[in-house]
């Protein structure tokens, strides 16, 4: 069984991720208190969306110092799968586990919509069940989703194939190069602003998020870690 940890900070909307893993994969998933430092018994960590610490100071700026981040860093260093969704992505950026920074949407409003995304690569543990170049529909819901990095970093991300998802059609927040999600150089830490956990049943408006989770399980099984 592939064990998932979903660290919950004060203000997180963590149960959406917990339920998605349960409903889609039927694998064990634990909501983990932000004070717990040891995540070694887990195979994957999902930092959820929401508003940890009310987004005070900067989104993710306070969460990044929570005790549980020790366990998250360790999991990342060990090559385990670490995903940051929405606020989770912001936390990974603040923690330096991914490059760049997140800013306020350029139109200054919160934006909730079903967004078309292009899956840029199908070689990652998170995207194997997609086809490179495929367009999928996943909801976004954020006020600070405007991804920013300097030119040097952008060139690196492009060169190394670290850009995983781009916004297709309208860029909903002004992100540089329409970046919606990136992965680290090692390919095991992914951050994305759209919410695949909110697109796992057709009645939700789209089920394109299912394959995000199935990809991870497939990777884990095939990687011999099972």
């Amino acid at each position, binding site marked *: 069984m592939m064990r998932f940890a979903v660290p919950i900070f004060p203000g997180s909307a963590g149960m959406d991720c917990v339920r998605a893993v349960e409903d889609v994969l039927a694998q064990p998933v634990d909501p983990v208190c932000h004070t717990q430092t040891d995540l070694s018994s887990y195979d994957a960590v999902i930092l959820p969306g929401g508003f940890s610490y009310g987004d005070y100071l900067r989104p993710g*700026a306070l969460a990044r110092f929570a005790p549980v981040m020790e366990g998250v860093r360790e999991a990342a260093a060990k090559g385990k799968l670490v995903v940051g969704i929405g606020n989770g992505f912001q936390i990974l950026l603040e923690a330096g586990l991914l490059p760049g*920074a997140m800013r*306020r949407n*350029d139109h*200054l409003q919160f934006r909730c919509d079903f967004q078309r995304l292009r899956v840029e690569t199908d070689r990652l543990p998170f995207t194997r069940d997609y086809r490179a170049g495929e367009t999928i529909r996943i909801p976004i819901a954020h006020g600070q989703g405007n991804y*920013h990095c300097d030119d040097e970093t952008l060139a690196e991300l492009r060169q190394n194939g670290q850009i995983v998802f781009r916004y297709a059609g309208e860029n909903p927040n002004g992100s540089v190069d329409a970046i919606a999600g990136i992965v680290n150089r090692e390919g095991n830490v992914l951050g994305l602003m759209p919410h695949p956990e909110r697109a796992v049943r057709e009645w939700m408006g789209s089920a394109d998020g299912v394959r995000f989770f199935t990809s991870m399980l497939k990777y884990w099984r095939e990687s011999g870690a099972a």
Partner: protein
Amino acid sequence: MIKATITVKLKPSVLDPQGEAIRKSLNALGFDEVTGLRTGKTMEVWLEADDPGEAEARVKAMCEKLLVNPVIETYSFSLEEGK
């Protein structure tokens, strides 16, 4: 007691859409002479400390560790005695 007043600003190279929107509003209200506006934030921090040199080093550390995001922000601060 030492009070630090910290100003956090966006790096000059970073676009400030909020600043732009506010500038346009000022222009629309008749303040045509405004050609630019950038937003930032101010934090006032009270420290139980006596030595200004030490306080300066500590405030710098606070900025670097938590208060400022070095990817997109710069900062400056001043110190004053008393409450």
